[in-house]
């Protein structure tokens, strides 16, 4: 009897624990309401139409013709959006790739109330350090709720309305010239190196300078630390050891040379 009681207690305890887990799972899915679910390799819907900061209608498919840094902001954000845009502006000035030639930046507002006029005002805050002729390659888009939902769902960008504004994650995405999502970089400031590598990667399968391929050989993306880590040392180390073992093996197999005299 005692045994059975113990078993029941144990089982109910397990059920309780499981219940707690369930609640936790719920928490997690709530968290994903604000956050990012990576959709690497997916293609963003290229048929969506947005307005740029000049009020011109623009189809995403026409816009995205080179590696693109994609970010989501809303223009009255009191929190991390300004920090994110400052971070992007910083990284543009530090990259040795040329904005407009090698890549472009697209900032999409997820607030359907934002207008091209407001976009123009906001843009002027962040393009100070960028030369006049390059400014046009940082696009500020606004659009309808329907299109916003389509694009944010496609890239796995989840946010909710909260009070007067939104609660939303902070990251930039790298999109290939064919509209494929190739990398997510998190936070509000980005290492020029990571961005450069990500832009290189997004050209995969396209013709590109050899140096990019060398760089990709040297570095690999480490999903755990969410950054690029050096690969070349590991490869070189294994090669050196391999050669050493081969030499030693040959020497022991062949033994001493027969003397000539």
């Amino acid at each position, binding site marked *: 009897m005692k045994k059975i009681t113990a078993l029941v207690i144990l089982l109910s305890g397990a059920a309780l624990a499981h219940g707690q887990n369930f609640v936790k799972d719920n928490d997690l899915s709530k968290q994903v309401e604000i956050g990012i679910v990576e959709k690497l390799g997916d293609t963003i819907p290229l048929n969506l139409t947005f307005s740029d900061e000049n009020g011109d209608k623009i189809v995403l498919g026409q816009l995205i013709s080179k590696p693109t840094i994609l970010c989501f902001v809303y223009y009255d954000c009191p929190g991390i959006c300004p920090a994110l845009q400052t971070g992007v502006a910083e990284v543009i000035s530090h990259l*040795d790739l040329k904005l407009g030639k090698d890549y472009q930046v697209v900032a999409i507002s997820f607030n359907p109330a934002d207008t091209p006029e407001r976009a123009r005002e906001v843009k002027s805050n962040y393009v100070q350090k960028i030369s006049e002729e390059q400014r046009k390659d940082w696009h500020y888009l606004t659009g309808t709720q329907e299109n916003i939902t389509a694009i944010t769902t496609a890239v796995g960008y989840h946010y909710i309305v909260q009070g007067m504004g939104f609660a939303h994650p902070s990251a930039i995405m790298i999109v290939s010239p064919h509209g494929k999502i190739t990398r997510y970089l998190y936070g509000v400031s980005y*290492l*020029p*190196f*990571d961005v450069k590598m990500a832009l290189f990667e997004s050209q995969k399968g396209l013709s590109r300078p050899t*140096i990019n391929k060398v*760089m990709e050989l*040297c570095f690999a993306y480490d999903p755990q630390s969410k950054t*690029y880590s*050096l690969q*070349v*040392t590991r490869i*070189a*180390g294994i090669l*050196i*050891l391999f050669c*050493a073992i081969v*030499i030693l093996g040959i*020497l*022991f197999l*062949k*033994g*001493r*040379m027969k*003397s000539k*005299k």
Partner: protein
Amino acid sequence: MINMDKPGNTPYVSYLKHEGKYKGLLGWLLTTDHKRIGLLYLYAIIVFFFVGAILGLLMRIELIAPGQTIMGPQTYNGLFTIHGIIMIFVIVIPALPAVFGNFFLPILIGARDVAFPRLNLFSFYLYILGAILGVLSQFAGSGPPDTGWTFYVPYSAQSSTNVIYALVAAFILGFSSILTGINFIVTIHRLRAPGMSWFRMPLFPWAIYATAWIQVLATPIVGITLLMVIAERVLHIGFFDPALGGDPVLFQHLFWIYSHPAVYIMILPAMGIVTEIFPTFSQKPVFGYGAIAMSSLAIAFVGYFVWGHHMFTSGTSYASRWVFSFLTFIVAVPSAIKVFNWISTMYGGSIDLKPPLLYAISFIFLFMIGGFTGLTLGSLATNIQVHATSFVVAHFHYIIFGGMGFATFAGIHYWFPKMFGRMYNNKVANIAWGINFVGFNLLYFPQFIIGIQGMPRRYFDYLPQFQPAQVISTIGGFILFSGLVLMLVNLMKAARKGEPAPANPWKGVTLEWQIPSPPPHENFEEIPEIKTKPYLFGTGNNE
């Protein structure tokens, strides 16, 4: 014992007079004879050594008084950088394998040459190219490099000076070292005389063998690392520079993964040399042959895993600090085994206090001071106190100069009669030894004391309280330099008109003493067959 015709009875042509395909100067510059290549290295290294020594002396003069004495801070930075680069990469790393390894390794194992004689000559020219580039970095372009010989990033990625010259120089010198290492490994495996099993091999070849593996395995790492710094400077790839997204501590790891084992590239052949000297001048079999041979391999092996002790203050994790500290203490064990064996070899022997033995004994003394202070640096707590002070400078000069340097002098005085076929003046050599020993200790010992008191290394200026020690140090520097000059003059005089040397002036028993002085072109008329262990000194076959 080895059966050989009594040398001197049969007329022969020595390697110094031998005429091959090329004559005169070309006969030297294009030679593939391991002995001639050894001498080429020796001459080059002597020249660079005096360049490095004069640079060191200039630093000592600057430090004789606080404030600016003869140069400004930027000049001083350039001086200690190039002093380090020349001394480490051009002299102490290649010197012993390239000079004595080349000359005596084939003879000691009963071979006519190294396995790849042409590769050997190629290594020499790589060495010269690298050395010249290193010196050129002082004069060409935008000013002498000022990073220190360790090239720490991020400064080396940003300094506007000639860092690239110096990096390329070190890279090329590294390649020369790798090729020499491969050559020796193959030579030892393939060319030992008949009957010479591994454990009938003399102990200097054992030391060279352990060294060669370090050269082959560790040097590529620094080669790649230096290339990465060049790529960082030229292509702005962010390997190490945090401004580009790199990791500066990674550079320190990669650099020391090579540069710590490099310390054993210097010291292992030095230990090998004195291991040859103690039995000869004690006329007694070496004590603990197996222990000495195995401790060479053990030092080479454990020496790979201690690099982190250079980085105790670089913010590495606690776990890695205590592991590296522990391994550093472990590497002291095989070193101590050797010291006990050398002393036991002398114990009860008939000791003949000639210049080679004087240098070998002072090697033990200086190496032990260097070794024990190395443990001070290897302990986590004391390391923080003395890190980057002149204590470190004193420590590694005791190891590198007191250890490797004095062993080199021991080797030169031991093998000089064989290499040049002439005897030097013993009395002058003894006096030069005395001056060197006193000058060395005066120069470096005060650095330990002011290091503990807080004198930082790499500063051209200091607080007035350190001046007495700095003055003693500078005086010691001049005494040491004059001793070195006296030693060199004595040897140069002997090489030209010393008395002809007999085949076996020290009553040695290893193979090099069984052939004439200087050796013939192909070393052996007939390759000897080895039937016993080395170093028996007529005590019978104990196999």
